[in-house]
């Protein structure tokens, strides 16, 4: 088992946003963490990856994530989030190379025999090999997100965690990013865990899903089993599936014309 979470409770300011959550994750899986706003999705992901203090257990291959050194943790778990500062105008290559930070050894963290190859591979995978020397400020929003995706690819983790990675992106970029991650996941020994708002994306790309309802786990299992029409209706307080279908029907009439 790659990640095992048992009875995890966590939150901000003494109030638990997540209560007694349990789930696990194996290599090859893509676990989608779903639920309405304020259900505790980000809190759960942050706690399970050791960013936020919590009660309960979260173990990565049997090791308590709270006891792991930051660099040791970063060699196994990479996080792609949208809260990244771009105050300073780094080049694409500099940002991607930062993904190798935890792998560098030695006094000034300069020795990393695999680094160059990993950086080149990551840049190639996201299709930015020719923008290597470009500055971030010269790129589009979608390209910037791909740069940070290349950074986590270069980090070469076993578990990739995504905290609402495509929220602010156009639909084209969303598909691009999710396809890239899906391809990455299919190599042996890799898994993905992500927070997503869009249930269509969750169902389309997730192998497994975890549905949160006000801090508690309402369902966890294979995506098709966990995200049923009844459960979604219960957790979201409306017939979500019916609404999604209705939305899609708008296009049927316009197709005929």
């Amino acid at each position, binding site marked *: 088992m790659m990640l095992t979470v048992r009875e995890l409770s966590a939150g901000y300011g003494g109030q638990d946003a997540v209560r007694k959550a349990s789930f696990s994750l194996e290599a090859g899986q893509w676990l989608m963490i779903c639920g309405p706003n304020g259900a505790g999705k980000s809190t759960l992901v942050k706690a399970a990856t050791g960013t936020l203090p919590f009660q309960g257990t979260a173990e990565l291959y049997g090791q308590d994530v709270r006891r792991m050194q*930051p*660099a040791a943790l*970063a060699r196994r778990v*990479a996080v792609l989030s949208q809260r990244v*500062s771009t*105050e300073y*105008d780094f080049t694409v290559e*500099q940002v991607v190379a930062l993904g190798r930070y935890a792998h560098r050894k030695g006094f*000034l963290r300069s020795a990393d025999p695999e680094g160059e190859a990993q950086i080149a591979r990551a840049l190639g995978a996201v299709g930015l090999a020719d923008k290597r020397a470009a500055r971030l400020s010269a790129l589009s929003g979608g390209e910037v997100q791909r740069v940070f995706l290349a950074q986590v690819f270069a980090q070469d983790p076993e578990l990739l965690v995504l905290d609402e990675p495509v929220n602010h992106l156009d639909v084209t970029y969303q598909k691009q990013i999710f396809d890239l991650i899906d391809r990455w996941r299919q190599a042996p020994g890799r898994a993905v865990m992500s927070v997503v708002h869009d249930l269509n994306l969750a169902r389309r790309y997730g192998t497994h899903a975890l549905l949160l309802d006000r801090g508690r786990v309402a369902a966890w299992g294979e995506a098709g089993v966990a995200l049923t029409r009844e459960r979604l209706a219960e957790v979201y307080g409306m017939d979500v599936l019916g609404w999604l279908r209705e939305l899609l029907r708008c296009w049927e009439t316009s197709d005929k014309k």
Partner: protein
Amino acid sequence: MARKLLWWCLPPVLLLTMLLCVCAGSVPLSPGETLQILWRGLTGTEAGGSGEAIILRVRLPRVLCVALTGASLSLCGAAMQGLLRNPLADGSTLGVSSGASLGAILAIVLGIQFPGLPFAGTMVMAMLFAFGSLALILTLAYALDRSLATGTIILIGVVFSMFVSSLMNLLITFAGEKIKSITFWTLGSLSGSTYVNALTLLLALTVCGGALLALGGALNAFALGEEQARHLGVSVRRVKLTVMAAVSVLLGVCVSIGGTIGFVGLVIPHMVRLVLGPDHRRLLPASLLAGAVFLLLADLVGRTLLSPVELPIGVVTSLVGAAAFLVIFYRSRKRGSAQ
């Protein structure tokens, strides 16, 4: 291309600037003469004479102190800007230098001293107050705005500086003759520097500067945000504490020797970043060298422009610094609103 050029130019430029600053002054001496005197001073074969006295007793220690102070201030600015991902952060804009001054003044007023080490009491108090100020300002900034937005932390720094300055004025008014003028503490001066001062600065810069230079990679990660740095494998707390401690010690030493010389740490890293880009593994060492050159030239202007009247060195750096502050603020705001 410009990067490589700057990189290889800086060390010789620094040496030439130092030579220029030793030559120039109210009694100008030719470079050849100066070099001869320096050589005689180094080999201990002094012949006596007014030129020798001026260079070896007055100008050389001052030039060394100015160069080391400039290097330290500039390096501190660059490191803080990386840590706080805020291009306006600097000892003077955050009020850390003012805090250090207050500590130094308090030490003098209260007569805090270590036996056998005449300046150590002032210096240690300046370092402690620098660290305390930095910790206080950061705590306040985090409490008000976790993203450390450019404006918030600078506003806190300004308010803190004003508060500390009024305390300093109060102390100086009551302490009378014991303390150097308020001008020294608010605008700084390195006239009358000694070789002991230079040696102290060199020691601090070697230890603390070395610690900061070794953190270039980690500061690059910090520049993307603290959370991001943690995800990349940086020991966030350790790096933060190291930077804070190193910066406090360096600023404490600089302030207790030369007073508050403002804006060096703001102007120089910004200019270096324009040429070399934001990679801290290059930015930090280049800022160190360029800061030394900048302060040497500022000191030269200060003591030759209206000679025999000597301008406080902080007047020159603040004139340049205020303009630079506006430019950086404008650019940073424009970038912020474009996203």
